[in-house]
């Protein structure tokens, strides 16, 4: 009986937290590198907003089934990515332009989500809100396996780019002069980061701050090369998510808090602390 609970509930839940935390942390690292800006977090591109919009639409329509919500969210995320890439190309694909597209997409998706929520009934509102605030409670083996494969693929590809990511820090043109095919690199990093965000959001909803905090913690620990930053961020992201989920379960047990609330509750002060400590 106890073994059954462990196998059916606890273990998948912990694994989902690990996957989600690791995905968000790596996405955060890739995007912070890509924009050479430490303030960038995975939500900035509008990809998670796209996922959120698709998820809320499914909830509002009342479509059920194990695979429907995560798949809709995943499709929403990739749809947002396609939009960002297409708009970026039209605008000249500069980094500032990409961020502007992301900001606009975020605003648009947030407005549409609010519209759906204000039109929906109470049940819709509650379950959509629960999803938007993030949770690992829906973890199950059927969804964990494909996402493990996808995570492994994206992590491997990112690892292959680790020296290129170091080179990229010299500056875009300098990286090109060191032989990096910058157009292809930019596209690949954007796709990798978006798939990672989609992976996290599709199963766990809106989990904030892990993607911002984990790469910062890795840097604060003194890691500078991507051969070290990559694994460190993955590990820290996973640990943060598991810890937040444990708190979410025990703080007001037997009731449960949305884990996204906790990641932000822990993450925001921790983030500020990192900066305050750096000053002294």
């Amino acid at each position, binding site marked *: 009986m106890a073994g059954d609970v462990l196998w059916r509930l606890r273990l998948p839940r912990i694994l989902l937290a690990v996957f989600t935390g690791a995905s968000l942390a790596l996405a955060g690292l890739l995007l912070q590198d890509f924009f*050479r800006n430490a303030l960038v977090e995975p939500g900035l591109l509008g990809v998670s907003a796209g996922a959120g919009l698709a998820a809320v639409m499914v909830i509002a329509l009342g479509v059920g089934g194990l695979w429907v919500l995560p798949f809709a969210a995943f499709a929403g995320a990739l749809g947002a990515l396609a939009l960002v890439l297409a708009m970026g190309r039209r605008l*000249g694909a*500069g980094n500032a332009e990409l961020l502007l597209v992301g900001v606009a997409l975020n605003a648009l998706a947030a407005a549409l989500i609010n519209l759906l929520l204000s039109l929906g009934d109470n049940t819709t509102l509650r379950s959509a809100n629960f999803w938007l605030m993030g949770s690992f409670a829906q973890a199950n083996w059927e969804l964990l396996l494909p996402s493990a494969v996808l995570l492994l693929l994206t992590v491997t590809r990112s690892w292959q780019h680790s*020296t*290129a990511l*170091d*080179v990229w*820090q*010299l*500056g*875009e*043109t*300098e990286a*090109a*002069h*060191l*032989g*990096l*095919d*910058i157009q292809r690199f930019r596209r690949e990093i954007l796709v990798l980061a978006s798939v990672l965000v989609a992976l996290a959001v599709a199963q766990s909803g809106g989990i904030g701050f892990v993607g911002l905090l984990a790469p910062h913690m890795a*840097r604060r620990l003194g890691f*500078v*090369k991507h051969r070290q930053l990559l694994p460190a961020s993955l590990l820290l992201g996973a640990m943060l998510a598991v810890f937040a989920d444990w708190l979410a379960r025990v703080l007001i047990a037997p009731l449960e808090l949305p884990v996204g609330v906790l990641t932000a509750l822990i993450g925001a002060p921790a983030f500020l602390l990192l900066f305050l400590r750096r000053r002294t």
Partner: protein
Amino acid sequence: MIALSGVSCHFGAHRVLQDITVTLESGCIALVGPNGAGKSTLLRLCTDGGRYFSRAGITGDICLDGSALKNMAPDALARRRSFLPQQHADALRLPVHDLLCLAAWPHGRSDLASATTKPLYEQALQTWELTSLASRLYDELSGGERQRVQLARTWLQMRLHPLAHERLWLLDEPQNSLDLPHQQRLRQSLCQEARTGALVIFSTHDINFALRTADRILVLKSGRLHAAGSPDTIADPVLLQDVFGVAFDRMQHPADGIPWLLPH
């Protein structure tokens, strides 16, 4: 090695280079000219054909050993050519050692520890006096130290190419932030590479540095190639006053007899 014929470049309505035709085989070439004369743009065109300029209109042909530079694969180009830009990303948090190892990346290496590359790495540290800085973080270095790191990085990238006569080293104002002893080291390094067969092209605002370092000087004025020739022919007060709007006296350096220009 590099042949430009009828090369013009404009950004919008602003013409930066007009009808540049010149062939550069080997040796040490200095680019001089007032601010905005087109020195940096010309260097960039020789580096990558201008392919990363946004909204630039480039006409004419730029060829490296007979093939169009802008069509060459970036990785193949990076194995024989390195470029020192005028400005560097300053938020770069890497130890000097790891930063220098990035020079080996286009050559398919992730470090400089092998038997063939280690002596070069040691030489780079010595030439640019970086031995004591090797484990320091780049973003914690002074401006002059950063410049030395970047010089060492581009030197290594170019030197890792096995064929001396195919090496191409381009430097945009390499003297920036360097103190006098390191400017001397820079001069020796530029001359040394040119002597072994590489093509070295650098821009400078220091006419005397150009006279003492280069085999050939290109004078740019308002985007045009105003004059080109040996240091002796370029050290002409009339020519230089026409370009810079400053009067010069031509002297001889007491130690080696090389022309020395004194502005007044």
